[in-house]
């Protein structure tokens, strides 16, 4: 009996897809050029619900020799008896065609993939970051995005430095309150060079006041 899953998988294999299986999950790896045709074929085969689009970064995956990124489309039919994972493999800097023409709802899912992994979708109506702050550099789910000891960046180049934050907790150092300024490029933080102008003015005023008291 032809099920949507069998039909869909056969259509994808006809487009040059290679089938993989783990436990009861069936995935088909498609060449990039055949992605939209493949998804269209799946919709016609009855797998008409798109659950999710997400990206994977295989940079540090042991024994991985293929392309660095994979984008996975999670598609199923209305009865949810068949589910198929469509995978497309990509290198850094490669982009994918958008699937918003097939599912308008793919817009948010593609934006999330772009935000987290940095894969761009050509033809997307509104490809912006969705979850991370506008002034955050980089894509957090890339495996080379540092974790933990990363200065947290805020507007106008201000950031919290973890070492200083901890020092401030001991009460011996001035900690965060005296820490303003500094810049960051991508994942590299430069040492802060100056305290921000307002703070500098108030410090200067304070110093002058103390000098004046000393003279008396």
């Amino acid at each position, binding site marked *: 009996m032809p099920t949507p899953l069998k039909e869909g998988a056969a259509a994808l294999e006809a487009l040059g897809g290679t089938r993989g299986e783990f436990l009861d999950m069936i995935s088909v790896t498609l060449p990039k050029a055949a992605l939209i045709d493949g998804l269209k074929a799946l919709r016609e085969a009855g797998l008409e*619900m798109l659950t999710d689009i997400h990206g994977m970064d295989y940079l540090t995956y042991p024994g991985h020799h293929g392309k660095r990124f994979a984008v996975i489309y999670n598609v199923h039919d209305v009865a949810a*008896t068949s589910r198929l994972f469509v995978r497309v493999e990509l290198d850094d800097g490669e982009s994918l065609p958008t699937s918003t023409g097939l599912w308008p709802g793919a817009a948010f899912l593609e934006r999330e993939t772009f935000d987290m992994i940095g894969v761009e979708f050509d033809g997307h109506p509104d490809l912006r970051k969705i979850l991370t702050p506008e002034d955050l550099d980089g894509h957090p789910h890339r495996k080379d995005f540092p974790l933990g000891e990363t200065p947290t960046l805020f507007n106008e180049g201000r950031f919290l430095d973890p070492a200083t934050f901890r020092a401030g907790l001991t009460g011996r150092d001035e900690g965060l309150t005296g820490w303003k300024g500094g810049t960051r490029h991508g994942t590299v933080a430069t040492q802060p060079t100056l305290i921000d102008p307002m703070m500098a003015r108030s410090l200067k005023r304070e110093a002058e006041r103390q000098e004046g008291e000393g003279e008396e």
Partner: protein
Amino acid sequence: MSSRLPPAPTRADDRIPRLGDFETRHMRINVGPQHPSTHGVLRLVVDLDGERIVRLKPYVGYLHTGFEKTMENRTYQQGITYSNRMDYVNGFGHDLAYILAVEKLIGARVPERAQRVRVILTELNRIASHLVFFGTTLLDMGALTPFFYTMRERETLQDIFEAVTGVRMNYGYYRAGGLYRDVPDGFDQAVRAFGASFPRYLEQYDTLFMENDILIARTKGVAVLSRQQAIDYCLTGPSMRASGVALDFRKAQPYSGYEDYDFDVPVFEQGDIFARLMVRRVEMAESLRIVEQALDRLEPGPIIDPDRRVSLPPRRELETSMEAVIFHFKLVTEGFHPPRGEVYVPTESARGELGYYLVSDGGSMPYRVKVRAPSLANLQSLEVSSLGGLFADMVINIASFDPVLGDVDK
């Protein structure tokens, strides 16, 4: 001479403005992110033509906490601390989705008692979540009283959750292979007492709001989402079933023994706000049916997979068995190492399809965690369902999709 003058105005050509001559310019209004009607920190930019919405854009991400990335740097067992913090209204649902994916990866065998307790707690949590939904939705409609009624019932449930897990929120009660501890004495009676009183409260709700003329006038035929739109906009859960798509993963792909229970999946065709309310109203009664059936079949027995590679050995064994100490040490310091592979288990959360896509590289921490959270995808349909509607209806429309912003932003 007269040819050099402009023609004298005639009566017919008088530029007395008529109704059709007025033009309103579109006005752009910002809603939120800090606004009580957005159920969290959701920002909407709305273009209005008079009172009618011509364009709506949701902006999310204000609650982004990086849970996925954090979970990738903790062991599988520690991940349970984070999963329930995403959807804080339906914590058991997220816990279950995460733990099912982990169990599929390691092949744990969950004892029957643990399955039943999980079903009871998850369904009670679904009721609690829908109660919050009703309270807040009607609050947005200007009805303050229902909020107190629904919170009263939710309080009973919260007391049960507190007795079972020790906390009222962020439960973290499930473990790979079973449960963290058995349910306390009196659990059965407490749930049965709730089950005995709740149908009466549901009837009260029906008379109070589902049959209320004001509510019907404000919700019927408002913000309609067709079946095709629901599919195109990747909608899932109760909101999708209100648009005529009969899909419930508890029926379609049963997990945790849902195939044993007799329950119906409410489906409505109208796709308006009233249908979205009704689906959840009926679901509460159906969830209660599942809870009572599970309670009837709750037999004493083990609550966790006895496989030492998965679960901690019992305390008393640690005093007599060196092996138990070794297993205990390995599990606590390092955790288990699942085989390489990628798994996804879809579950039906109170908001829609919820699943964790876990990728294992053979280590003791997941290589990649991707949460398919229902609220993010559901939120997009606001863009179409609100179009052409009144600004005042938009607020109820947001509420009718029941977004939890922790679930949206992860």
